[in-house]
């Protein structure tokens, strides 16, 4: 394991896991946070096998084919039915999705 990876593994403590859960917008119980801390550290240690590879001159590959942006002609097409889409939402009114307050609260 390289120094950089060792440092990363050592940093996986309960506090780091809580930060990741917050980033992922996941409310986790204490038991889940404990489990995640153990598991994440274990998984990351396992992933050390690729850390030993010399990859400096290798280009990353994000998808099977080297696609560029795929654009179609700028003409209107049929879209989903507005009411049908809103009917699937937990809360909708006046033709819009409904959510609890966003502003004015201490987040």
């Amino acid at each position: 394991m390289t120094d950089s990876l060792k440092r990363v593994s050592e940093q996986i403590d309960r506090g780091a896991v809580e930060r990741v859960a917050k980033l992922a917008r996941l409310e986790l119980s204490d038991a889940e946070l404990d489990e995640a801390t153990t598991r994440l550290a274990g998984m990351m240690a396992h992933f050390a096998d690729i850390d030993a590879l010399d990859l400096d001159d290798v280009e990353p590959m994000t998808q099977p084919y080297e696609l560029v942006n795929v654009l179609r002609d700028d003409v209107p097409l049929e879209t989903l039915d507005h009411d049908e889409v809103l009917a699937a939402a937990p809360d909708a009114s006046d033709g819009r999705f409904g959510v609890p307050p966003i502003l004015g609260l201490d987040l």
Partner: protein
Amino acid sequence: MSTFQSARSIAASVSTGESSAVDIVSEHLARIEEREEEVHAFNLVLHDEALQSAERVDERIAAGEHVGPLAGVPIALKDNLCTRGIPTTCSSNILDGWRPPYDATVVARLADAGAVFVGKTNLDEFAMGSSTENSAFGPTRNPLDTSRVPGGSSGGSAAAVAAGFSAMSLGSDTGGSIRQPAALCGVVGVKPTYGAVSRLGLIAFASSLDQIGPFTHDVADAALLLECMAGHDPGDSTSIPQSFPSLSESLDRGVAGLRIGRIVDLPSGADADVVASVDRAFEVLADAGAEIIDVTIPAFTYGLTAYYLIAPAEASSNLARYDGVRFGSRVEAADTNSMYMATRGEGFGPEVKRRIMLGTYALSAGYYDAYYGKALKVRRLMAQDFATAYESVDALVTPASPSVAFPFGSKTSDPLAMYLCDTYTIPSNLIGHPAMSVPFGAGENDLPIGVQVLAPAMGEPTMFAVAAELERSAGGNHV
């Protein structure tokens, strides 16, 4: 080996009026009635809808219409494929009650070909798992031995075909989720070339890896189903803008003159019965005139690590859309952010949370280069190694699953042990190549073994020629 009627035979007899679609569908619904409680292949059985569709097929045939190559064929759909107005859950509580406002392209294409949909099949939640034990609605049992798993994540679709609940089914394969359950349930399962089949309406897990593919009783049915659903779709920007090659002509081609590769540095870990079946597959192919050539793919061994960084990274991004706003369940809270956190905390199951956490961590500032960036470079090495191998061979043969179907609970306490199920299937997803599992021999407790055939991108004709040869020698092709 399956004894059920092939889809080709069903479509032929329904098209000529020799059998009625209603009778065919009723036979399948009767088998569901008989064994579904024990197997639990479905999240939803479309009993009345299927009979109505079958009636329409019979009416059109009586009126002299040409219905299509899947006339009256009962097909089951993995419950991560969108069906307009019909609940689609991904076996997750977070999509409880959601009815999609549109059909997946594959669903529309199969309906146009005359198929009759009999139900939505169970899966590991959001297709994350290799045993269907991660479903929020309870596991599916292997119809061949109900004390064992059917594999996953498309376990319900594999079980539906193996139990004769449907003549064919659709699954999705992100790291082996069609091929491994096909192997464990003794049916044929195909992951097509990335981009060969439209992903529009497939609920995304890892977008650069996901492909929809068939489960069938035999290789010829798989060719038929794939031909019906493949081809360019302007609604999927990763869909390959060219026509899909014909497969039916490949089935009787044989393997004479084909060069088939044996990967000598394949990661170990397959059980002895599986290794013996693969060895026998090479013997059979050599006897049929193929040249067996040893190749090396050094990056193969790093596939699992690359996959378990790339797939959770993409999943953590894709699953951000389940926030209690536009679809599915919501847990009410005082403000939007708390509502997101509570909805996701309650709606997702343990394995989905585990992968979202892993993916979010791997993508977070400071760790991106150490993990995700390296995984993407390994993916490139994998593509290069396969390209080199394909300079000297036309197809490759490996195990599909390291073992036959395993008992419930035997891998659930250790996620890494479960992840090892995907060792031999993952590389094809990383590089977008086609691969399929074909039943070939039996192992422990007479359970089926799947041999995997791999080919380069759009190399399905060669892949099907090899699979058909293996099937012939195993005595598995249907009338």
